């Protein structure tokens, strides 16, 4: 079966050890993660994991079943790229001299719609939010000028369809009462 990029979204309680428990599900199946990020969600006290993997449809379905089985997981979903709006964020640290000596670098920044976050006498930092190809292109463009540091975040994404976590939580509450 053909592999594809899937974004898994997990809504969970905020309990110590859950991160380990979820990553163990991938480890057990020898699956490498493309990216992993975790943050607060739209609901107070509910946390959200965004995990990107490249697997077959059957594998992602089984993975999500196993994730959802964990006691502290409220609900897990998986989506294709077409079903989500997603972004990554990258930071680029460059010598300040490059900015003043190489006029071309100013054009690169302008054309890539990147933002300058900070400028100091020694270095300046550029931030770029976008798709992987865009942050990657900017990295390639800046490389000749001496990248002091480069870092890219994991994917964050929201789905086009609604997830209805509040409704799910209400149903759970009623089931328990």
């Amino acid at each position, binding site marked *: 079966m053909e592999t594809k990029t899937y974004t898994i979204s997990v809504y969970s309680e905020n309990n*110590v050890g859950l991160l380990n428990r979820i990553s163990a599900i991938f480890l057990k199946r020898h699956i490498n993660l493309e990216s992993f990020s975790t943050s607060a969600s739209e609901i107070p006290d509910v946390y959200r994991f965004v995990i990107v993997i490249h697997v077959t449809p059957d594998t992602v379905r089984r993975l999500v079943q196993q994730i959802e089985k964990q006691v502290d997981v409220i609900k897990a979903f998986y989506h294709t790229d077409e079903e989500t709006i997603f972004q990554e964020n990258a930071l680029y640290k460059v010598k300040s001299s490059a900015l003043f000596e190489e006029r071309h670098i100013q054009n690169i920044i302008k054309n890539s719609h990147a933002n300058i976050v900070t400028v100091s006498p020694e270095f300046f930092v550029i931030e770029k939010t976008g798709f992987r190809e865009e942050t990657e292109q900017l990295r390639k463009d800046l490389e000749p000028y001496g990248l002091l540091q480069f870092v890219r975040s994991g994917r964050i994404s929201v789905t086009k369809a609604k997830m209805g976590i509040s409704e799910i939580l209400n149903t759970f509450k009623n089931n328990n009462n």
Partner: protein
Amino acid sequence: MSTSSQEKSKVISNISGAEAVIRCLLEEGVETLYGYPGGAIMPIYDELYKFQDILHHVLTRHEQGATHAAQGYARTSGKVGVAMATSGPGATNLVTGIADAQIDSTPMVCITGQVASHLLGSDAFQETDIIGISTPVTKWNYQITKASEIPEIMARAFYIARSGRPGPVLIDITKDAQFEHFDFGYKKCTGIRSYQPYPILDQVKVDEAIALINQAKKPFIVWGQGVILGQAESEFKTFVEISGIPAAWTILGLSALPTDHPSNRGMVGMHGNYAPNLLTNECDLLIAIGMRFDDRVTGDLNTYAKQAKIIHLELDPAEVNKNVTADITLLADCKISLQRLNEKITPKSYPEWIQRFDELDAIEYKKVIHHDLHPTKPGLTMGETIEMINRFSKGNAVIVTDVGQHQMVACRYAKFNQSKSNVTSGGLGTMGFALPAAIGAKMGAPEREVVAVIGDGGYQMTIQELGTIFQQRLAVKIVVLNNDFLGMVRQWQQLFFDKRYASTEMVNPDFVKIAEGYYIQAKRINQRDELENAVKEMIASDQPYFLEVCVEKEDNVFPMIPSGASVSAIRLE
């Protein structure tokens, strides 16, 4: 955390975390637990000393034994088994039993001591990250660092272990939390927001399932441990009897329906019976009840029941379409699903289809069973020993088995009249399981005869638990089927590795002397004419009893589906 709850019990002021742990166990109805003391759990053991009149702690000889004993207790009593150990090596020694309980869905709560919270992460004496280590093999785990967390976490632990698809939970408690004082109040956990253990059955699916059953000409049931865990034995029997459908069991489903029930057609899987394995690929409807299509049951999935429609009665959503895609899934406790099916099922019979089972049974009897049970060769067989146990136990014993040839033979031939009578390590295949599991099995069902049937290999993995049996004066009957080999591995070496017997031959000690060293009555036999009296004497004894049966050295277990092959490739020789 949001735990919906009943009224809190009366508050007891200013008690230690250690005492709170004991009070939690009492609140949960625990009467027996298994464990081994050590530095980081000493405050809890000190409290156990004070509560010893109402809470019976069994000192095993190794922490692994404590987990298997807790498992055996859970399997025969239906209650949550409890095991306790200290930090570091005490905790890591629990891991095999925890993994076994996880894969076999056994409700168990393990409590481990941990170094004081200020030492966490400092590589302190006997510190291990047991939360990290046990995460992949527990249903849930939690580290307590404050005494005030104890009541709610312990309540959750028991709720999670026993509800839904049961499993093991590990609670790690730092030593300072055991010493810390607080005001104790207990409320049982009745629900957790993110945890929905009982899916609500979709009635439409029930109607669809009934329609499929009504159309079927050659329906076939395979049931698993879900029937026992769901306490659905009576609903299951009704379903089988009204529907008239032949039924076969997975190893953990054994004993849910009496052996001599006319619809019980034996075992499926690698060493299962000929008819149910072959007819899996002939039936037109496969009804899977509380089973998970393990690879030892299905063999090659690409050739498994491809011709059949499949109805799957399952409680765990993660098992749905995991290995085999079902046409209809009844996602609920199988007790409820079976009740709903029973309301609508039409009485039927399938004489021609049943005839197919009878024909294939006759072939298996002639080629395999007859030789196992009525051998003409001089050497004793495992099969005739099991048959002799049946004769004197009358099918009323709990049979505890280890892993390997003796396990397959015991499961194939042991007779069972009632449920919760087969205790074995199914999914994990843990050698060394049986002897300690038999301790728990006997304590979980003290009025019943408990016979542990063990191979000479697995017996020596946990042989030290003879000490526990002696100290507890438990009337456990131990039968070691000794062929001086790791028999199942040797069988594979014979069949698939050109008889290269790499490290499978065992030079064994005098097992009788060892048992006698533990003051356990013991006997060794190697002649057929000794078997009847020996088994008779063993069953009649009201004390622990050890019987070594020296069996044929190089016997093989048949039928056999070679690993990874189709169920249709089942071999009789």
